[in-house]
Each structure stands twice: as structure tokens, then as C-alpha cells.
């Protein structure tokens, strides 16, 4: 599958499983997970720090070859997201940005309009922009047209592990939008990720399901295998289903003397 690697913003990404770094018990565990998953991309957030208690920098634990994307979590408006992106770049974290603008406290659903505004601004400033959004073809098309590197619809609310509950809308986006579609948020089981890849998603982003697992390293490895399986099935062409049965074994003329 060498030739199938994903290229975004001039970077070649070998694994289509993206893994977030939130909620891990330790930087060490997070590192093991990223290695086990062979994650192609990871996400990191920013936060105010008042004193130097925790002296070590999470970025030092990201395996080389795992591309870092800064997410703007905490932003409630396009302006705040833009400000976080600039801070991240100034801090030397590069120019890959996951735009996450959330105004809803219960379901943490993204604000599509503010997300679109932030995308327009940051693309102009030379960022490689990955907007996290609520699946909607009209907004997805605008995001792609204004230069988003990929469009990232949610599968279900962040951290809910409910799986791909937005399949219908995501499938339409895949068919209609040229930009890569990456399902982000809500995937709880490897089979959920497999389904996304079978449909033709370019990648999936998983965090909570792995981070809160009893065995994060194995669970991450399982997701990684499932993503490969789904991608390979997509490239091979999915088997289409039929209503009735089709024999896979010879059923005729055997042992029945009347035959």
C-alpha cells in the first residue's frame, strides 16, 4: 500500500489514523500509544500556565514522523481560534492547525460559521488548516473552496464513543467534496473507524476511546489495523449487498436420486 500514502500540505502521511493526545495518564503512555498506532498525525492543545510545576514539554514526547497539529480547543469565536493559531506557530509548533470553535457546552458541537471565518483567515496567513465541523455539505464546500487542507466532520459528540452517527451526511460530503474528509470525534470502536475508511474517508481522528481504554496501547493498535483494513477494502471496492441469498457451494444434483 506504499503508493496509497496520503499527502496533505506537501507532507506525506503514511498512516491514516490520527490520534489526539488528550486525557492520557502520562506523557509516556501517550508516546507508547502514538508508536503502537504508528499515528500519522497527532493533536496538541494550548493552555495558560502559571508556574513551572510540570517542567517537561509534551511536544518532546511526540515520536518523530508523527506530524503535530495544534487544536484551538477553548476558542469560542473565530478571533480566539486565530489568536491561538498564531500563538502556536510563534511557539514553534508549526503551522498545522485543527480549528475547533465550540459554543455548545453540553455536546461540544462546533460552530460552523465561526469555524469557516477562522479557516478563511488562517489559510490566508499560510496555515495548513483542518476545520472540525458539524457535517453540512454547504459549509464543507465553502471550507474546501477557501483552502482548508481537509474537512473534519464529527461522527458523534466528542468523547461520546457513539460511533459514526452522521453517516448519511458524511457519505454525501465524501462524494461531493474534493478535499480529504476526515471523521473526527465520537468514534468508539475500531469497527467505527473501519466503516469510515470503507466509505472513502481519507483518515480518522481518535482520542478519547483510546485514552480512556483499559489498554490504550492495544486499543490504539486495534484502531490502526481497522483503519488499514477499511482503507484497503475501499481501494479494493466494497462488495455490494443483495436481498436474497447466493449459494457459495454447489447445491444441485447431489445425493438426490430424483436429480
Amino acid at each position: 500500500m506504499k503508493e496509497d500514502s496520503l499527502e496533505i500540505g506537501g507532507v506525506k502521511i503514511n498512516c491514516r489514523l490520527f490520534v489526539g493526545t488528550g486525557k492520557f495518564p502520562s506523557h509516556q503512555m501517550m508516546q507508547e500509544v502514538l508508536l503502537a498506532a504508528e499515528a500519522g498525525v497527532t493533536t496538541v492543545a494550548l493552555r495558560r500556565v502559571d508556574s513551572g510545576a510540570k517542567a517537561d514539554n509534551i511536544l518532546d514526547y511526540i515520536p518523530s514522523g508523527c506530524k503535530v497539529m495544534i487544536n484551538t480547543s477553548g476558542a469560542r469565536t473565530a478571533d480566539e481560534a486565530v489568536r491561538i493559531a498564531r500563538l502556536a506557530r510563534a511557539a514553534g509548533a508549526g503551522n498545522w492547525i485543527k480549528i475547533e470553535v465550540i459554543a455548545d457546552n453540553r455536546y461540544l458541537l462546533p460552530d460552523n460559521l465561526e469555524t469557516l471565518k477562522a479557516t478563511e483567515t488562517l489559510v490566508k496567513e499560510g496555515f495548513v488548516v483542518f476545520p472540525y465541523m458539524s457535517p453540512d455539505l454547504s459549509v464543507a464546500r465553502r471550507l474546501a473552496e477557501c483552502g482548508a487542507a481537509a474537512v473534519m466532520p464529527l461522527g458523534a459528540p466528542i468523547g461520546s464513543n457513539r460511533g459514526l452517527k452522521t453517516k448519511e451526511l458524511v457519505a454525501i460530503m465524501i462524494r461531493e467534496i474534493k478535499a480529504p474528509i476526515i471523521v473526527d470525534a465520537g468514534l468508539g470502536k475500531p469497527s467505527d473507524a473501519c466503516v469510515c475508511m470503507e466509505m472513502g474517508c481519507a483518515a480518522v481522528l481518535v482520542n478519547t476511546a483510546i485514552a480512556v481504554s483499559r489498554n490504550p496501547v492495544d486499543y490504539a493498535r486495534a484502531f490502526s489495523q481497522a483503519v488499514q483494513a477499511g482503507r484497503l477494502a475501499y481501494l479494493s471496492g466494497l462488495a455490494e449487498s443483495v436481498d436474497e441469498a447466493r449459494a457459495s457451494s454447489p447445491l444441485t444434483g447431489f445425493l438426490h436420486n430424483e436429480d
Partner: protein
Amino acid sequence: MKVRINGSDEIISEKLITLQQLIKDRGLSPKQVVVEVNLQIIPWEQWPQITLQDKDSIEIISFVGGG
């Protein structure tokens, strides 16, 4: 002198204090944080030259795990 740090007001006794010093006092290392003063990002090379003014608004930010 009254400054706003990470969204909360603080009184600073020193008449003259550089950004460099402020960060150092808090036990933070340049490797680890990025600093914004009055919405301007200050590269760590410039920290020694920047002296805080009354009413400055300072953000000290670092990286954490996120999804």
C-alpha cells in the same frame, strides 16, 4: 504596578522587571512556554529587553494534551 497575567490581576512590587525575569520567577523555561503581551507575541530572544508596564496584559501559554 498592576498587571493582568493569564486573565487575573496581579500586583508587582518591583519598579523594573523584565519579561525574562517574570518567567524565571515562575520557574518556567523558554523551551516550554510562549508569551503574549497586550496581544503581541514576544519571541523569547526579546524577553530580556521587555520591561513590564502598569496595566500590561500578559498571557503565558504552554502545550498540553488535546484531542
